[in-house]
């Protein structure tokens, strides 16, 4: 787990965009298994999940539809029951038919978490400020997901203002300065 910290504007988001391949670095390159990610961008994209601070969900669609569409566009096709399980897990079980716009900020954030629950087969998670707008229980839940992802051999790159609350053995903290 790479835990990126830094002041506003230090370049945390930019770093994550470079790692996820949205942005090309001015110099240097990002390697995955020794290969530049831009050489086989499509392969790289099917092994990583990038969630930035924007919601990337549509107001007009229901919670379940949003989850299904986000996943299928990223190449994951699952049964509705499994998606419903994921919603239950993040505490949105009652809301699956509600339009996305009726959710609170924290609930919207939880929907992004539900995506990760289903997405756990992807080794690399890249999360930009995942704890924003979450309540204590939500933060705790998300930390749990990340820990079990790490324990299962996955990788997480994230940015946050919070102090890391993970087992030290797999944690690396990167502090960005000017």
């Amino acid at each position, binding site marked *: 787990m790479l835990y990126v910290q830094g002041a*506003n*504007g*230090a*370049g945390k988001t930019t770093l994550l965009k470079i790692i996820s391949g949205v942005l090309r670095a001015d110099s240097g390159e990002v390697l995955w298994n020794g290969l530049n990610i831009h050489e086989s961008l499509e392969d790289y994209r099917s092994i990583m999940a990038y969630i930035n601070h924007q919601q990337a969900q549509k107001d007009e669609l229901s919670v379940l539809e949003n989850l299904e569409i986000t996943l299928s566009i990223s190449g994951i096709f699952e049964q509705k029951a499994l998606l419903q399980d994921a919603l239950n897990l993040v505490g949105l079980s009652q809301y699956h038919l509600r339009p996305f716009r009726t959710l609170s900020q924290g609930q919207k954030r939880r929907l992004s978490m539900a995506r990760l629950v289903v997405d756990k087969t992807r080794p690399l998670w890249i999360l930009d400020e995942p704890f924003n707008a979450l309540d204590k229980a939500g933060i705790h839940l998300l930390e749990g997901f990340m820990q079990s992802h790490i324990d299962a051999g996955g990788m997480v790159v994230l940015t946050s203002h919070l102090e890391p609350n993970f087992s030290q053995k797999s944690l690396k903290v990167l502090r960005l300065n*000017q």
Partner: protein
Amino acid sequence: MNLYKFSSPKVFYPLAGSIFKYTLLPSIFFLVVGLYISFFLAPTDFQQGEAYRIIFIHVPAAWMSMIIYMAMAFWNIVGFSLKSKLSFMMSRALAPTGAIFTFIALITGAFWGRPMWGAWWVWDARLTSELILLFLYIGYIALVMSFDDSKRGERVGAIYSIVSVINVPIIYFSVIWWNTLHQGASVSFNKAPSMAAMIVEGMLVMMLAFWTYSIAVVMLRIRRIIVEYQEEMLLMNHTTEG
């Protein structure tokens, strides 16, 4: 010699200054010679009388407007293939000058057309293409200006310039085709009067004057763009500290 060296804005900055110095005087010189030929050496035209002297600026200005738009697309293609900042800046520096030559070509076209055809404007292929070209220049400039981040603006503008440059010949030929359809006013600039050698020379000298002028003013403008770029970088570093 390593040409790549000059592709960095910082290195190019002083070079642009000296290119400016060495093109400004020639442009004035060619302008004076060109004016002398257009008014004193070139003979009066039998059909058009003295009004034809407008072509000494109209035709070179029209050439410049087309060449500059193509040069912009060229620099933008270079910019994307070599990833050089300076090429995009070059294109941005060229745009206003190109737009001004397009404007001049249009105005002088109208001033020529009025006594010759009795109309300020005819929808012939060349004038129409010039008009569309002016719209394209305006579109490019407006697009680049709509971005606060000039680096992104230049790149987005570059895409537009490359796509739209293909459009210019298409428009030119489609207007020709369109006019044959209407069989209307068949007067056009193509039927130039028997061109005396002196007339061609006059236009060429004027062309040289416009060329050197454009290079001079573009070099000046690119210096401003480079300074602005530096300021922008400073500003960005400044705000991120706070």
